[in-house]
């Protein structure tokens, strides 16, 4: 006997919000990537300094809820907030290279574009993962073609 789809649809009282949330994440992927990298670095630094989010909030003069938002990696951070984080944690989070280099090359085989204009100084040791490469003191990120929705 096949599933009773009519009964199933009667049970489904509402639409899931997943599709719209996923579309929003896809649209915002470029800046979300930066927000996440900063969040990872902030949490890693707190751990190495044996400091918690409440203490960081007190030093920065903001609420713990604000720090919690930042470390989720979903905030469109202002440059001011990033600078405050750098100052109070004693780390470098973002730096614009002296000679910006734009290089968008679609790979025929893999259909991926490499976008290299702003570098995040993550100070992470080189990993073997395909999602991250380290060049000198900067990190280059591969950006999936579908993530390039600038201006859309």
């Amino acid at each position, binding site marked *: *006997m*096949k*599933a*009773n*789809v009519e*009964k*199933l*649809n009667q*049970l*489904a*009282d*509402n*639409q*899931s*919000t*997943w*599709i719209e*949330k*996923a*579309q929003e*994440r*896809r649209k915002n*992927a470029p800046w*979300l990537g930066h927000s*996440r990298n900063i*969040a*990872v670095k902030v*949490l*890693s630094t707190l*751990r190495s300094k044996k400091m918690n989010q409440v203490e960081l909030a007190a030093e920065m003069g903001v609420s713990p*809820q604000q720090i*919690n938002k930042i*470390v*989720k*990696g*979903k905030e469109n951070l202002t440059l001011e907030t990033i600078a405050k984080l750098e100052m109070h944690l004693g780390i470098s989070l973002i730096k614009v290279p002296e000679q910006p280099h734009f290089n968008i090359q679609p790979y025929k085989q893999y259909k991926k574009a490499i976008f290299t204009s702003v570098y995040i100084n993550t100070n*992470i040791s080189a*990993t*073997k*993962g395909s*999602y*991250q490469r380290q060049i000198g003191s900067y990190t280059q990120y591969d950006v*999936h073609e*579908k993530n390039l929705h600038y201006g859309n």
Partner: protein
Amino acid sequence: MFALRTIIENCLYAVRVQPKPIDPFEFEDNYENDSYSDEFVRLFDNWNDVAYLDAFFDHHQKDLLAGFFRETHTIEEAVHKTLDEAERLESKLLDIAERGSTSSYSNLQNLFKPVFEHEKSQYPIPVLQKSKVYGDGERSWLRVYALRIDNNLYVITGGAIKLTKTMNDRPHLLAELEKMELVKKWLIENQVIDLDSLIEFMEVDL
């Protein structure tokens, strides 16, 4: 208690658990004003939440270093890996959902595999197939769990980051198994599926 939310009508659904399951790595105010939609939304919310992932991998550090995977990972590397895989997996699912045609929905079957490997050799097939969706790549630890209740008809019950070989090894994985059992019973109670039904077995890879 369960409710059901539609993702793709007549194809993909997700359960809403009431009250919302307690996840020790979630921030308590994540879903204020009853904004919790369903387990599928909650899953990808968490997999895109750096603080959640950091807390999860901090708690499961031993599993990261246990050697189940080819490479060991620091917490930071594990967070980046998960964010990347979650983005790819969600992109695949979103592509399917946005195509909006019956032939495209059949691609869902390409993503799901049976949870229990021994079920591959069984016939007749168990009434309700527990299915899981792998994240992208050979060593993905992301899992989406669903009940396959008919051809191209799935009910997502939840998901997890699986750092061990079997689901019996960790409480958060056992909780997902239990949830699938409870949703199965709930669907039978509500006459969505009959215990005597036969389900055709489909095994495809990512």
